[in-house]
């Protein structure tokens, strides 16, 4: 491209001369975080909610497309070290006369350059800029093929490229078009920065800022084909949120457990199952005393006295649970936290006491809402009611399934408590109801265990548990609160501050809150399973001065049963798709977040039928 003198002159006059030298780094006039990354603008154009989730709430998740995208960048991401001079700040007159002798108009390729513009309020990382004198052409690499659209590319890509162009212009370059390079097609598509595109781009920047400043998350798209391809679909829960947005949960108040939810969906279609039913990675539990966990390349190796007990792929591990004295190498700890794999620490006796995890989640909005809800009696009672009512209903369902006398008075009583729980007006009465319902429930629940003298089933007790069933229950509750602590932390909550349980030192109150509705479903039923299937017996326990503890073998059987339960797939009662319990915990935590952030009117407790 040969550049005419007038073009140069017009460029110098139209661009802001003050910023023309601020290349390669952000300026210090506007703080870094106020500049909108051009990549985010792409996301906002794709879906406003996606842009908001990523930029404002700091959510980030990878999927194949984002990964392939960055792999396509592998050549360009290596910033070359050669010097690229900013456009010369020369007097237009002098320039018009003679091109500078020391700067011949050869083409220069500059890769991976960070540029910002205060005027546009944008910051961009440019894959590649082709420079010819003062004319700059941004080149953006895209995975995949050239799409079959008249504009040559989809809007998000064109807007992103145009925003790069605007940043280049503000830095003193002349920039009238850009290039999208489609890796799979090996084709360059030229995108002219015409008036229309520039206006649209600036409008989107303004809209994005306004949305972020207002602090209101844009609603999910409705039944959009974009969602299945969106990397944040599991966080956004588009169809689920849309479904729950409209109708209040009237069915929760219903005494007939067989009745289906009566909520009318916003769209007539049921939610699509957009997140996988199960996770590929699973927990790793280690209770072998003195064991050592090291990292070797992409694996974790577990050794005891130099002898290898196991070697697992890091890919297969979702969390690590350590009981008593198990050691981890510093490399392993650092790699695990880098990958977002938490390490949960339990005492030898099974008391969950701490967690080692990576950096705290960026979603500060959520924590602000959580704290304010916790301080607002009305708001927290609203959620607590759902949690406790859900728990009572799930207790009833468990009993109904297992007791012989289907007309037993306990079922009627629990139904009554359930309804009263939904009507209470104070936390104290909710606490009272919960206590009464638990008493009724446990009286019958303990009848469901085999009547073996060595097991001495005699009602619920704890600290220390004085009978095997109690030891198992306490342990399972501990595993469950670990699970929910991990989930809540991953979603961005502070697990320590609850809405029902009062914060006490070292207790993850919110995890305990959320555990309420899942105790019967996950812990109590796993306890029934291990005793009634003979997976534990009298030999699995040790009596120690009135207290009962589990043997290592007994504990492993209980963990195995618990894990089986977590991986059980069931049909979601509201959404209608198949999903495993561990995922349900995550979905519930996200729905709680959606509720606290004001997107859905009520927290829908999880009740099975």
């Amino acid at each position: 491209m040969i550049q005419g003198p007038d073009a140069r002159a017009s460029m110098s006059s139209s661009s802001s001369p003050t910023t023309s030298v601020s290349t390669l780094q952000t300026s210090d006039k506007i703080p870094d975080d106020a500049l909108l990354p051009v990549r985010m603008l792409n996301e906002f154009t794709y879906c406003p909610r996606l842009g908001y989730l990523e930029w404002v709430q700091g959510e980030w998740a990878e999927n194949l497309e984002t990964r392939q995208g960055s792999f396509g960048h592998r050549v360009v991401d290596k910033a070359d070290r050669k010097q690229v001079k900013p456009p010369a700040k020369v007097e237009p007159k002098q320039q018009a006369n003679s091109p500078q002798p020391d700067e011949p108009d050869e083409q220069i390729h500059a890769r991976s350059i960070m540029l910002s513009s205060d005027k546009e309020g944008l910051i961009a990382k440019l894959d590649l800029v082709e420079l010819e004198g003062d004319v700059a052409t941004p080149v953006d690499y895209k995975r995949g093929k050239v799409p079959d659209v008249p504009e040559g590319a989809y809007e998000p890509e064109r807007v992103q490229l145009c925003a790069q162009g605007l940043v280049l212009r503000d830095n003193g370059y002349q920039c009238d078009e850009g290039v999208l390079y489609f890796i799979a097609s090996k084709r360059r598509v030229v995108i002219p920065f015409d008036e229309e595109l520039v206006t649209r781009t600036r409008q989107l920047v303004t809209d994005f800022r306004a949305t972020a400043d207002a602090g209101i998350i844009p609603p999910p798209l409705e039944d959009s084909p974009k969602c299945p391809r969106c990397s944040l679909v599991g966080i956004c829960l588009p169809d689920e949120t849309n479904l729950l947005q409209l109708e209040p949960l009237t069915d929760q108040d219903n005494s007939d457990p067989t009745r289906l939810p009566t909520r009318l969906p916003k769209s007539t279609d049921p939610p699509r199952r957009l997140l996988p039913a199960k996770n590929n990675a699973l927990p790793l539990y280690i209770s072998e005393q003195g064991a050592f966990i090291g990292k070797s390349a992409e694996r974790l190796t577990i050794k005891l006295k130099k002898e290898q007990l196991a070697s697992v792929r890091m890919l297969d591990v979702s969390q690590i649970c350590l009981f008593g004295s198990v050691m981890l190498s510093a490399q392993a700890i650092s790699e695990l936290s880098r990958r977002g794999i938490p390490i949960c620490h339990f005492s030898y006796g099974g008391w969950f006491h701490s967690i080692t995890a990576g950096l705290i989640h960026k979603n500060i909005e959520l924590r602000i809402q959580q704290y304010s809800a916790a301080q607002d009696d009305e708001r927290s009672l609203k959620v607590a009611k759902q949690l406790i009512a859900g728990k009572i209903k799930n207790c009833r369902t468990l009993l109904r399934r297992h007791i012989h006398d289907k007309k037993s008075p306990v079922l009627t009583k629990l139904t009554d408590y359930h309804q009263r729980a939904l009507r209470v007006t104070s936390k104290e009465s909710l606490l009272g109801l919960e206590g009464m319902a638990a008493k009724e429930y446990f009286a019958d629940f303990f009848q469901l265990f085999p009547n073996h003298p060595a097991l001495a089933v005699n009602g619920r007790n704890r600290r220390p548990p004085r009978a095997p069933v109690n030891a198992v229950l306490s342990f399972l509750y501990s595993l469950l609160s670990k699970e929910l602590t991990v989930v809540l932390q991953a979603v961005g909550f502070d697990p320590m501050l609850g809405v029902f349980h009062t914060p006490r030192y070292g207790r993850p109150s919110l995890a305990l809150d959320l555990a309420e509705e899942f105790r019967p479903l996950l812990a109590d039923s796993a306890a029934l399973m291990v005793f009634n299937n003979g997976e534990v017996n009298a030999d699995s326990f040790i009596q120690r001065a009135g207290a009962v503890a589990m043997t290592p073998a007994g504990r492993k059987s209980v963990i195995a049963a618990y894990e089986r339960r977590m991986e059980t797939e069931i049909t979601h009662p509201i959404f209608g798709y198949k999903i495993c319990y561990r995922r349900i915990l995550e979905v519930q935590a996200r729905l709680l977040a959606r509720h606290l952030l004001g997107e859905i009117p009520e927290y829908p407790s999880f009740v099975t039928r």
Partner: protein
Amino acid sequence: MRSVYLVAYDISCPKRYRKIYPIMRGYGEALQYSVFRSELTDTELHSLKELLWPLLNHDEDRVMIVDLGPIEGRGDNCVEFWGDPIVTPHERSATII
């Protein structure tokens, strides 16, 4: 969901081999010298490629990746194995030690 892949490679230089082998181990089980069986999702397969790519000498080394299909499908039935086979359970469960 994950699929089963057979990954085989020839690395002509021992120095590169020593770098590549531990990565392969992180993504699968060695069936034979330089032949691995890997259960991977699309994204995990992609990560493996990402890791291997810069370590290879693209003129001298060779990598072959065969997609054997979904786990619990054709994935394993299509491999006849003589000798002491690597047993990989179809139902994955948490590791408890």
